[in-house]
């Protein structure tokens, strides 16, 4: 498909991929994280020195590594959707497994990070920066788990041959949610770890 065709309104899909209900949920999640991001940014503008000093203690490489992991997981999910669109159930399952695996990897890296911070004595009540840091990352952490649960359910159904080129709405539903989780981290990482 060339770009001219893509921009032709009549050829556009009426609704986003996956179930409309998941999109209502995705938009609500965006709103939730959006409020977090803005609350963080404005709380920072009143406590610049505290935030800048505390930010230095975060493990930037772990954060970046996790970004790479999530982006790659998202890519796997894209491939899973592409596979089922040409009726390759088997490939779809494998790509989904790869995505779930990358989700697991993200959790492991994050747990190591949390552990390091715990050992150094940082917690939710250390200061305002850490209140934000922990509540945002833990909240996102829970979303990664939820995304993995959804992808696992989709994967099992795909393995039973529950999806096909004609009917794979469920795969798209799980994929859309997973991309949302990825997008949130793409913003969260630079915002909390890097920008100062």
């Amino acid at each position, binding site marked *: 498909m060339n770009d001219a065709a893509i921009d032709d309104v009549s050829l556009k899909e009426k609704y986003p991929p996956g179930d409309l209900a998941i999109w209502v949920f995705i938009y609500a999640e965006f709103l939730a994280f959006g409020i977090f991001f803005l609350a963080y940014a404005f709380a920072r503008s009143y406590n610049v020195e505290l935030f800048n000093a505390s930010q230095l203690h975060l493990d930037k490489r772990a954060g970046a590594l996790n970004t790479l992991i999530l982006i790659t997981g998202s890519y796997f999910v*894209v491939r899973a959707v592409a596979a089922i669109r040409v009726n390759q159930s088997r490939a779809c399952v494998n790509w989904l497994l790869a995505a779930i695996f990358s989700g697991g990897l993200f959790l492991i890296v994050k747990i190591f990070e949390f552990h390091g911070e715990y050992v150094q004595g940082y917690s939710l009540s250390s200061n305002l920066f850490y209140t934000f840091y922990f509540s945002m990352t833990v909240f996102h952490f829970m979303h990664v788990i939820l995304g993995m649960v959804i992808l696992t359910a989709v994967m099992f159904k795909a393995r039973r041959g529950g999806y096909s080129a004609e009917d794979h709405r469920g795969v798209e539903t799980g994929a859309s949610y997973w991309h949302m989780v990825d997008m949130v981290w*793409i913003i969260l990482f630079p*915002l909390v770890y890097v920008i100062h």
Partner: protein
Amino acid sequence: MTQNTVKTFLYLRPCTWDWLLLMALTLMILMVAETGLGGRYIVGLLIVSMLVKTQIVADYFMGLKRVRLRWRLIVSGYLLVVMSMIGLAYKLSLS
């Protein structure tokens, strides 16, 4: 590299290109982080990179480019509002 491998490399799936671009942008952010740079231009650069990355995910990974504009506009509008507000908050703290 032979002619043929160059060709296959160039004919990677579009989504693979998107993925490579996202990885590269992430590494760029990491480099900025490692140097510890800050200030107006770096903040601006980082915010633009976040905007580009999220928009790529929305357009090509989520596939909103193929959907009627309104659904995509919700996401793009959201990203634009959040990013500019973040920018504003940082501008307030820089001045």
